[in-house]
């Protein structure tokens, strides 16, 4: 059968790209089986995605940091600290939400630029510079919550970011009463847009005689991804629909995917990661790129802090603990290379989903936390080994 030969060939050639999807699929299938379907229930999937949110946005920023051959360890406690700042601004300074959020995001950018300064200007290893940030923001978090302990946030608008769902189209209760119609509609729209853009890019590639997937495989890919998106939409629509967290996550991914794949800035970032010396000689200012990438990391840390604080509806003294390592793990599981220049934003999101799926699934199975860490460690190392071996064997 030609079809299966093609399929095998395509899978083998693109194993790195599809590997993560397959892994995620397998993990979800296993948990669905072991929990007798609870894992795949609307409620659980909705929860799982909301839990992924604050790690996922960090993983997106971390992807770019690792692509330019750096690391940022400060992001966890920075997120925690900025979450506490948001809480203080809302509760004690009585500032309105529309003012607090831009302020906190701005502070995030500044914090990122501060981390970047010794790295870009003085060539201090980012590991050290951001480790200092880790300590400093941890102290700052403790300091800002010292007098009060946990700060409870009574603001409904703010708390909706981490707990609320998008409203449904009113007046359609006669049709599928228990399903969230707007979510379904958006999902459908996404599938249609996706199929159109895939077909368009395929045509374009054929015009240039670039290699494209065999037609049957292409259709299979479209069907597979449409079913995946459709399935997730259906599952979500069966609970409360899309949450604001998921909407924010999708916007972040869309923006970063666009910037990394379509813009001059994105190209410069990957060039710096791929060969800093060649990039510098090509007229790219490596310092400026370093500032931009760390600044974006700071922005996303602030966003992560807002998502987490809002989800808990309070700022705690330990918020943000180990977020940085979860984000780094997600990026590596998602196929980012420590050698620089390689890694996709979408991959890191899948990586984050893999990691939270593991946690969520094992929680449902009642597996002890100690074993959970061991399993997650094993998955991380397996993913990286897979990544490295498939990369070298391709040549």
């Amino acid at each position, binding site marked *: 059968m030609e079809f299966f030969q093609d399929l095998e060939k395509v899978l083998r050639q693109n194993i790195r790209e599809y590997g993560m999807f397959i892994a995620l699929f397998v993990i979800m299938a296993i948990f669905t089986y072991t929990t007798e379907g609870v894992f795949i229930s609307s409620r659980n999937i909705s929860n799982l995605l909301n839990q992924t949110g604050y790690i996922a946005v960090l993983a997106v920023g971390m992807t770019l940091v690792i692509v330019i051959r750096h690391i940022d360890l400060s992001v966890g406690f920075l997120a925690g600290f900025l979450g506490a700042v948001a809480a203080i601004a809302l509760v004690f300074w009585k500032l309105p939400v529309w003012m607090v959020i831009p302020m906190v995001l701005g502070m995030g950018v500044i914090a990122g630029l501060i981390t970047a300064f010794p790295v870009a200007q003085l060539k201090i290893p980012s590991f050290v510079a951001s480790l200092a940030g880790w300590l400093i923001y941890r102290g700052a978090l403790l300091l800002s919550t010292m007098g009060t302990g946990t700060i409870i946030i009574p603001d409904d608008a703010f708390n909706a970011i981490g707990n609320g769902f998008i409203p449904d189209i009113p007046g359609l209760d006669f049709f599928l009463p228990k399903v969230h119609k707007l979510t379904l509609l958006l999902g459908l729209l996404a599938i249609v847009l996706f199929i159109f853009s895939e077909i368009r890019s395929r045509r374009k590639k054929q015009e240039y005689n*670039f290699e494209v997937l065999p037609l049957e495989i292409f259709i299979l890919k479209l069907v597979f991804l449409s079913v995946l998106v459709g399935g997730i939409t259906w599952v979500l629509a069966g609970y409360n629909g899309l949450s604001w967290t998921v909407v924010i996550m999708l916007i972040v991914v869309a923006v970063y995917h666009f910037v990394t794949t379509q813009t*001059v800035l994105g*190209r410069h970032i990957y*060039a710096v990661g791929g060969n800093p*010396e060649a990039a510098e*000689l*090509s*007229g790219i200012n490596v310092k400026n790129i370093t500032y931009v990438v760390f600044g974006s990391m700071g922005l996303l840390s602030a966003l992560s802090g807002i998502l987490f604080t809002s989800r808990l509806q309070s700022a705690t003294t330990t918020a943000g603990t180990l977020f940085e390592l979860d984000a780094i793990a997600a990026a590596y599981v998602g196929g980012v290379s420590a050698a620089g220049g390689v890694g996709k934003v979408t991959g890191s999101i899948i990586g984050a989903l893999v990691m939270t799926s593991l946690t969520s699934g094992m929680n449902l199975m009642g597996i002890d936390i100690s074993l959970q860490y061991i399993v997650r460690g094993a998955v991380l190392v397996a993913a990286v080994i897979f990544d490295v071996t498939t990369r070298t064997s391709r*040549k």
Partner: protein
Amino acid sequence: MKPPILEMKNITKEFPGVKALSDVSFRVAEGEIHCLVGENGAGKSTLMKVLSGVYPYGTYSGEILFNGQVQRFSGIRDSEQAGIGIIYQELALVPEMTVYENIFLGNEIRRGWTVDWNETIRRAAQMLAKVRLNVNPETKVRDLGVGKQQLVEIAKALSRDVKLLILDEPTAALNEDDSANLLNLLRELKQHGVTCILISHKLKEVISIADTVTVLRDGKTICTLDAKKGEVSEQVLIKHMVGREINNIYPPRERIRSDEVVLEVRNWSAYDPKLGRNVLKDVSFHLKRGEIVGFAGLMGSGRTELARSLFGNPDGYEIRGEMYVRGQKLRFGHPQEAIRAGMAYVTEDRKAKGLILIQDVKQNITLANLNEIANHGVIDGNAEVKVANDYRESINIKTPTVAQIVGNLSGGNQQKVSVAKWLFVRPDILILDEPTRGIDVGAKYEIYTIMNRLVQQGMSIIMISSELPEVLGMSDRVYIVSSGRISGELPIEEATQEKIMHLATN
């Protein structure tokens, strides 16, 4: 004649696509100083790597006899054990360790499970006395000058009881006093029965110290000369070194006679704070419109440093001097500014410094001028493919599509991608650093043709090259660089391989 301590017979060593050594035979008598000379790429370093086991037995063909016995080294350790010590151009010392730690690194003096540091320091002091280096063994290597570091390397070799000491261009980075010192030490070691192979480009030095000289050219032994019989002189050595036939054909071009000076550099000096020395001293030259000016010289003579110091100075040299681009006095603080002023620099090591190997052909070609194919920072994918395809056709890059990863292309095609990238910035002044190194003859010819076409269109080219036939075949004028200075300028009518080599080895 004394019996040979070393005999290498019919050594052939191939790399993919290149025969680095072909049927080389080499004999070193016991207790002599034997110099090995030849142009860059003649095979000297390769031969020494075969000898020291860097290229283990089995990766070359031929036979090595040392001390009368057939040797089959599978690594440096084996050759060290046999009594061969090699000191490379780039020193192999650990800067953060002390002198005594370095001398016995990998050869620690033990007492039971631990290192006997007192004995180590005592023995290190002895070794330092042997090489006449008057420093405290507890000094960190980092705090020593290059000349003293060189001596520490020799002390390290002596501590292992070497019978044969190989030095690869030991004086390249040394000043005159340090060089003289080192040569004296080698003479002294000779008195103590240490045989020595010295690779050097400085012919005066060779003549003053050698008992025997072997000349290599293009991976073959050309001749072995005996100094005692008066066979060694500068003329003779140069003749044998450069005797390469000019069998590459260079595409003809009409010379353009323009008096417009597009680039002029006056009294240009550069101090490298990392190395702590001047890499360029008082360099002055000019470039006219439509001209190809060759920069000849040996590796490490400062040609690449000159190009980089002009092209936005990415290494952070401290520069003195003036540069005029089309009559305007300028100084660039970043390659970006140089590009805007119409300069382009095709680097010497395209893999490490020129290309992004993990990206594809089109991404590499457009990298230095992305704004031209972008609207408000968003790349127009169609425009990018079109640009890349235009260059693919016009300079004949052999690739299935422009979406091919550059790392998968052959050396010649990689070089063309590199050139295409810099043509896309539409430069006025193009600097080519070793434009044809490591690429095959056909691709070389194509690169030359492109160069001719560009100067016909009014571009001016600086060509840095270590291949003398290429310099003579392509240039309108030649500058010779030696130890960071311009040691001569020759109009092409007067330039010969001998004259250039004479100026380059001074």
